[in-house]
């Protein structure tokens, strides 16, 4: 168990490092940080000076190693744009994005799981078809379009919810629905497929043969086995939502990491982008590790025999 966890951790670190190397290379190709830092009216010598002071003239691998060592100590450098420690900005913005991601995932699970279960219990019924429609619509609607439609509907036509900001729970309702709805179809389908598989399995027949109440059969025997793949998927989805919340955060002016990343990309604010990519990818890796452990708990076959 310990050896396994260590190995997974090593893999996680390796993945995060690979991603950050990739993004480092990409971002360096994208823009000269010295030029970005020097700003508007800098002269060539200003830029040269910045290169010197910040070490942008060193070989890329050296710069990367330097960055990584500092990053591991929690020091992501200073934002070129905001001129404040990136770690502080992340501490400020991550909670918003995490809240949004968490809520959206919860929404997707709350909608996707029951729909998937019901659809599996009554395949081809009207519920199944409705669930299918809901999921297909979710997949086919551009996020920003959906977001704007909601804003028009619930902030202007029926002024129930504030269109933007992050002050109260009300502010999170629409972003959650938009982001969560995007993840719902996958979860619903996987639940449905898993449930269908499990319901057709021998041990469900055994459970029924014992004379158990159908609800017990469903919720105890079937669900636990059916959600195992859903757990892994949720980790992937959560990771995706953290990275993919740019559009939602932009529309709803949520000021999370997604929007920060996007603005930082366009401002060539490399340390910020770099840090966000590293944090998001590490986060994903940690999530999938958690998903693995959760699955091990759910499925004793994976657990220590």
């Amino acid at each position: 168990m310990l050896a396994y966890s260590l190995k997974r951790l090593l893999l996680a670190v390796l993945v995060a490092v690979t991603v950050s190397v990739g993004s480092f290379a990409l971002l360096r190709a994208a823009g000269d940080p010295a030029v970005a830092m020097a700003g508007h009216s800098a002269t060539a010598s200003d830029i040269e000076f910045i290169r010197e002071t910040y070490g942008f003239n060193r070989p890329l691998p050296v710069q990367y190693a330097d960055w990584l060592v500092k990053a591991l100590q929690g020091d992501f450098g200073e934002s070129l744009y905001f001129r404040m420690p990136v770690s502080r900005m992340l501490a400020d913005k991550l909670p918003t994005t995490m809240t949004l991601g968490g809520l959206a995932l919860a929404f997707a699970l709350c909608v996707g799981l029951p729909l998937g279960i019901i659809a599996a219990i009554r395949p081809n019924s009207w519920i199944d078809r409705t669930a299918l429609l809901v999921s297909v619509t979710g997949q086919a609607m551009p996020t920003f379009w959906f977001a704007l439609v909601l804003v028009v509907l619930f902030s202007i036509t029926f002024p129930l919810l504030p269109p933007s900001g992050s002050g109260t729970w009300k502010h999170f309702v629409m972003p959650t629905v938009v982001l969560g709805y995007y993840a719902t179809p996958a979860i619903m389908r996987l639940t449905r497929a898993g449930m269908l598989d499990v319901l057709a399995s021998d041990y469900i027949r055994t459970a029924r043969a014992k004379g158990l109440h159908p609800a017990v059969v469903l919720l105890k025997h079937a669900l636990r086995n059916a959600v195992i793949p859903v757990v892994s998927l949720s980790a992937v989805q959560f990771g995706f939502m953290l990275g993919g919340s740019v559009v939602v955060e932009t529309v709803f002016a949520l000021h999370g990491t997604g929007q920060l990343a996007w603005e930082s990309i366009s401002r060539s604010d490399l340390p910020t982008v770099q840090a966000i990519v590293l944090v998001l990818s590490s986060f994903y890796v940690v999530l999938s590790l958690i998903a693995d452990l959760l699955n091990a708990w759910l499925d004793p076959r994976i657990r220590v025999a």
Partner: protein
Amino acid sequence: APAPASAGKADDTLNIAWAGELPTLDRYFNVLREGELVARMVFDSLLTVDPQTFDYKPLLASSYRFVDNRTIEFELRRDVRFHDGEPFDADDVVYTLNLMADPATRVLSRQNVDWIEKVEKIDTHMVRLTMKAPTPLALEYLSGPLLIYPRDYYSKVGSQGMGLRPVGTGPYKVTAFDPGKRIVFEANRAYFDGSPKGRPTIGRIVQRTIPDQNTQIAELLSGGVDWIWNVPNDQAAKLASMPNVVVQNAQTMRFGYLAFDASNRTGHSSPVNDVRVRQAIAHSIDRKTIVKRLVRGASEVIDAVCFPTQFGCVQDVATYDYDPVKAKALLADAGYPNGLDIEFHAYRDRPVAEAMIGYMKAVGINAKLTYLQYEALRDKVYNGETDFTFMSWGSYSINDAAASVSQFFKGSKDDYARDPQVIGWLEGADSAIDPATRKDLYGKALRRIAEQAYWQPLFTYNVNYVHSKDIAFTPTADEIPRFYAVTWK
């Protein structure tokens, strides 16, 4: 209707929104226009410009006088205190201006401070400023970008501290600042009487950054914010008919232009190296229709590469009217009878860019658009990588041709003309004191630029200010909304 957390008039809070993210509130270290709005609320400079008459008026100075054409003496006000209670005096002026003028400080807009040689304290309420050379724009700078900071505070917290918790003398103080997200202003009840800016009337102003235009409008319509700007004309026109909304359109000092690589700076010879191609492009675009139908508002077509009200911005330059036939002829003459392909860069006003591409296409010029973020495009321009760009320039709201034509044609990083003649004229104009000489030299430069079509000036911009009926807001031509002057109706 919803009751947003802070709902307008009832609790004396003005909610405003814009898209820009201010990295810091230290004005010397941000260049965004929104930074200027904040600066005017929080800080004061020695002088100020009357937005209507463009006259210079004393602000922190109670009076000033030119000792000679390189020296000004300022008599300072005695009744001014910074937000932290520290009294304002000569030390603050001397400290701030000398610090910012020092190249080691690396303020972002060097031209604002470069001309200052030194500032000396004469007594507690008297300072003397010495220029490196006679500077025609000196008063312009002193009444805008050169804000006075409290010496004790700034020397203690530095630019970072100031950026987060600014302390100035202005009509509003900042009580909260989440960078890129939110700024909360509180009226400075101790603001000095007799300031040309007037005393603040609204108790609290909350600014939020809302990146998406639609969301801004939605917030306005739902009462979440009271004031937004830069609303596209199509929307503004429709918003004007809404019951609780006021739309005001005002011209700005910003103008749009096409810049060509006339001197082959990219090194990969492009068709626009040829003046005839540049002229053809200029002739191919129907600027009048674009202005009338697309840009609309108070905008107008311009022909010289400066804002018409700017000092020295002569109008008797070569013009390129919409004439596709002539454009085609010029192209054929330049050796492109079958049209040509060209890379085209832009960073704003996509519809205008698209419209121009449409016009060019009609005469056989296939402009392939690369649309970039401003910062990215600016870097490309600085690095000499663009053939043909659609840009805009706001002259830092300085009403003098030095802030426009001199900015771009004096051999700087963004000078793609590199015309020694023009450079010579402009250097002369920028250092001369005599208005007539300056005007003559700018005129020469402008005419040469137009004739060579180094740039094709397009039109002046306009801004739509959209706000709730509850407030009285007066737009100004310099594109600097003055929130301290806003009042409840």
